[in-house]
């Protein structure tokens, strides 16, 4: 008859680790879920990705340096899981005319200088789905910074920590990301006939 002393002790350690992990890591599920949702574009994949992230994080919990940014740490685990699982070659669309929207904008800008009015004129008819689809067309690096900045409201510093890049990179990716985004949005708006510049 084996006396299960050893298992009992490891069980206590497991319970402690478990409690600590639940307290520290689980409260950040919303940000992870949102990122996963915008990254994969559907709730089922987002669910899977979040689950996988937490299981991995739990497995590597001893690698996490206490007191450092846990959100950034979890985020990086998720990013890697995503890359391993879903990596699709998303390239910058090359057939798109980046100047199209500028030209249109300059025309309507001459009629009205009110930004709200201009916004309504160009993008007023867009649906949530259009915007979500436009976001999905962005290459992953650009999509990531746009999500973190404009949905999650993180600062440039935080984003830099999340993606492990200098702040200058964050800024330039945001700029280019938004530029691609608006081009795509304009394309959708035109297709649906909200915008008539032809």
């Amino acid at each position, binding site marked *: 008859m*084996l*006396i299960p*002393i*050893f298992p*009992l*002790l*490891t069980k*206590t*350690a*497991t319970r402690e*680790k*478990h409690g600590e*992990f*639940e307290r520290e890591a*689980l409260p950040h*599920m*919303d940000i*992870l*879920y*949102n990122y996963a*949702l*915008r990254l994969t574009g559907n*709730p089922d994949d987002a*669910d899977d990705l*979040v*689950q996988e992230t*937490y*299981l991995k994080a*739990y*497995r590597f919990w*001893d690698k996490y340096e206490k007191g450092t940014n846990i959100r950034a740490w979890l985020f990086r685990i998720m990013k890697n899981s995503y890359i391993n699982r879903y990596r699709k070659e998303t390239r910058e669309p090359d057939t798109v005319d980046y100047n199209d929207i*500028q030209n249109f*904008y*300059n025309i309507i*800008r001459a009629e009205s200088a009110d*930004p709200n009015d*201009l*916004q309504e004129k160009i*993008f007023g008819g*867009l*649906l*949530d789905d259009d*915007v*979500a689809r436009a*976001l999905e067309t962005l290459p992953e690096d650009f999509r990531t910074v*746009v999500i973190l*900045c*404009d*949905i*999650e409201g993180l600062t*440039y510093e935080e984003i830099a920590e999340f993606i492990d890049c200098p702040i200058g990179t964050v*800024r*330039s990716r*945001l*700029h280019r990301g*938004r*530029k691609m*985004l*608006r081009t795509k*949005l304009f394309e959708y708006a035109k297709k649906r006939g909200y915008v008539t510049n032809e």
Partner: protein
Amino acid sequence: MDCREALELVTPAVDGYLDCGVESQLQEHFEKCPACRSEFELERITKRVFKLHMSRVPAPQALAERVRAQLSAGTLAGSVPQFEIKKFLFQPTWRTFATAAGAIAVLLLIVLIPYKPQHSHARPIDGNIINQTYNNFGEVLKGTIVPGISSEDPAQVKSYMDPKVGFRTHVPLLKHGRLVGGMQAHYNDENVAHIIYRQNDNVIYLYQARLQSVMDGHTLRLPDSVKREILRTGSYFERQCAGCTLMLWTVDSTMCCAIADMGQPELVAFFKETE
């Protein structure tokens, strides 16, 4: 300020990062340069439109529960990573001594008592579902088979599993056991299901495959004697290792193979007493 400098500042300006001095210099530049101005205004509009349509979505409650369940299932299934024990030993507390004493006691017992492996489940991988069940049970106990869905609700597990495996899984609600979860896997091109239950500290592993595939014997198979036994009595039992029982039976067109560290009557009762 020239256009190159101005364009560098467009994005931080949109996000409100510029201090007043730089901001007014930028505005001055915009007065003279409509191209840079429209670049700035368009980026600002894009950000607004984007934020307008993309609100934050809270993580579904069910997901939070699944993650919690999965974490406890993972730890309970015995997947205690090695590092944890190491860290533990180096903490000079009473636990160090208790752990050491425990380890010595275990070692002594192993030396003193003729060693009988409790779970020697390693079998050849040959499509024989009995062997697969033994192998998988070993993996489940080691914690390497982790549920793809963790839930105590049979309906939830079934609705996750059935479309994945392409046959009707058998996931009963048991009186004396708690459902842990399930996962889908395949052996060559055959889909199989792993369902895990617990009863206190006991893990009950239930392997499932399409009955027709097992009977055809192309990919998955059973020895003829076992098939005959199932056709004759409805079930088949095997007690190859100390304390553990394997039970084969069919539910509609699904082949079930359960294994657990318990006696035959206990295992039969376990699956018989549904709620």
